[in-house]
């Protein structure tokens, strides 16, 4: 440690109250930054994980109308049109994509209808899946009661807890679905509830998972589906983008879809625009909040150090009279700013980090519908990342150092003769 840095730290200790007053906002600022980043990353992780596991995989093949316009809704990810031979297409993608990092390609069928149980009815999203090949979905839609959809059972249905409450259904109860097939006929399916999954993202509350075969029969689309969900070993967006041409080629070689639709290969970022718009909005809000925190902290530092210069005018005069150069005075005050920043950052990120770890363990209840939509679940679990801790701490230390430049400049301009006469 240089002598000047040692003096800087000692000066901080000499004026404890001033240090506390100027360091306090920075402690709060760095803590809030860590906490805010943790919340933002928690939301991003929840939304992305749910999207990838439940809806899109890392890449999906989907039939879109030629004039398709996304509605910025979580249901945009689902296709509503037919992928002819979706089961065979998934097999080919898995076989030919294996050496390129494709872990799994599974078809599913999404459709809408009405669920009826006794004298209660509800709008229903009926989703036909191959339960044996949906481990990510099984992990995302956690069993609360009963079991996940048993493979090979075409009469079982796996439903969300809010829907079970609404229709007063428990494991073993029967529920009927009435849908209009894409061709126009009305069809129905009677199913038995095999399990209830815990509430997650609110847009899955109306989801009823049945076997793919049952859904294909219900919607009169044997062998077909609406989406093919592709899971990659490397789930990064860049990897997904690189693999897209291969999937496009495989899809183009399969049966042609309805002439009014086209088969598209979408990355999870493209298919889940709704989720990523929430993530982006959160990040923007955090950036705005951070800039206000930084501005407030900077003003505080400048103010505190200017006060310090004022209080220590005679002292500055003395050390200048003893031969300290102007440059060294600047360095001393800048180092004081730096020391204050470092101490505040360490305390702030420690407090913020502890808060994130605690809330990440407990979860924050998202009690209102708006909050649940924003967080993609009824609880939000913030996450602590080293990069967030380092960037928040570094930013506060840098800010403090830079904010000290002006007071340091003021201190260095003091004339020793006048300073010594200062009362």
């Amino acid at each position: 440690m240089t002598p000047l840095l040692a003096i800087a730290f000692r000066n901080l200790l000499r004026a404890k109250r001033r240090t506390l007053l100027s360091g306090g906002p920075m402690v709060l600022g760095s803590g809030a930054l860590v906490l805010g980043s943790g919340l933002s990353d928690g939301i991003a992780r929840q939304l992305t994980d749910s999207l990838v596991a439940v809806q899109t995989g890392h890449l999906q093949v989907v039939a879109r109308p030629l004039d398709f316009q996304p509605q910025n809704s979580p249901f945009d990810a689902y296709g509503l049109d037919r992928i002819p031979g979706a089961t065979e297409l998934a097999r080919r993608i898995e076989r030919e994509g294996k050496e390129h990092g494709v872990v799994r390609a599974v078809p599913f069928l999404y459709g809408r209808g009405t669920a009826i149980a006794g004298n209660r009815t509800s709008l229903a999203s009926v989703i036909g899946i191959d339960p044996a090949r949906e481990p990510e979905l099984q992990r995302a839609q956690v069993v609360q009661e009963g079991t996940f959809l048993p493979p090979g059972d075409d009469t079982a249905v796996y439903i969300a807890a809010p829907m079970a409450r609404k229709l007063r259904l428990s494991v073993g109860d029967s529920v009927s679905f009435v849908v209009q097939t894409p061709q126009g006929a009305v069809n129905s399916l009677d199913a038995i509830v095999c399990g209830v999954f815990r509430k997650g993202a609110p847009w899955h509350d109306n989801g009823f998972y049945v076997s793919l075969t049952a859904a294909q029969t219900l919607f009169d689309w044997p062998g077909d589906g609406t989406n093919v969900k592709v899971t990659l070993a490397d789930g990064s967006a860049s990897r997904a983008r690189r693999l897209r041409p291969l999937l496009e080629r495989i899809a183009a070689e399969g049966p042609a879809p309805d002439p009014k639709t086209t088969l598209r290969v979408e990355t999870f970022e493209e298919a889940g625009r709704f989720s990523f718009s929430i993530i982006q909005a959160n990040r923007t809000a955090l950036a705005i909040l951070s800039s206000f925190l930084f501005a407030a902290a900077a003003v505080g530092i400048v103010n505190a150090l200017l006060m310090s210069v004022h209080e220590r005018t005679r002292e500055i005069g003395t050390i200048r009279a003893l031969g300290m150069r102007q440059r060294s005075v600047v360095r001393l005050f800048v180092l004081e700013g730096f020391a204050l920043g470092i101490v505040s950052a360490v305390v702030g990120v420690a407090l913020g980090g502890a808060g994130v770890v605690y809330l990440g363990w407990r979860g924050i209840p998202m009690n209102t519908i708006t909050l649940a939509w924003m967080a993609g679940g009824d609880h939000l679990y913030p996450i602590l990342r080293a990069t967030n801790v380092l960037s928040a701490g570094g930013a506060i230390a840098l800010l403090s150092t830079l904010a000290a430049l002006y007071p340091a400049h003021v201190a260095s301009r003091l004339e020793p003769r006048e300073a010594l006469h200062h009362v």
Partner: protein
Amino acid sequence: MSSLVLLALLAAPPGADEILKRAQVAVLGETATYTLRMTVSRPGKSERVVEMKGWKKGDDLGLVRYTSPPKERGTAYLRNGGSTWLYLPAAEKVVRVGAKQNFGGGDFSNGDVFRLSLTKDYAATLAGEETVDGQACWKLELKARDRSVAYDRVVYWVRTDGTFFPVRADYYTLSGRRLKWLTSAEVGRIGGRQRPTLLTMESALETGARTLLKFLTIDDGVPLDDRLFTPSALEKGE
């Protein structure tokens, strides 16, 4: 011998298609204006009563406007060919709706009210005679001609007493599940002739759900301009 053949022919029931055709116009003629009251019943909920005025021309043109309650007055459904529109006066908007969506929140679908052209959409066979609600009826088995027709199978009972009044219809889904059934137990003189005046649709899946359509007035054979059945006319009101 020849007179015996003639008697046998006279005694033979009409063909399934003929029965169906006659039953189709037993309630409303080819062209008609009418008023009706719809009552939607759901267990544990108060009844919803809506009155409306309707116009019908052939199988493909139909219009219904709500006349009460006041807050729903002006709401209108239009059927023209293969399309159905809903007009919501509060929003001043005409939106296209599906023919299979329920009509006014009840158990009838839009298609049931405006167009269920049994003769066009179904191949009919005479499956015998049965007594339903004390009435001797022909039992018709109707099978959808293709998979775009709403109900894959309909079992239809029509009175054999020469009135051709439909007594009951059971509607089935593609999977063979009975979805709902229609009964017309009440007959009265309205619009100058005897006809069924109360139609009741009950859900086979939703316990206790039923919807009643009570015809209050019917005027058959009134000439109607096709321009009445357009989305632009829908917005203008009566």
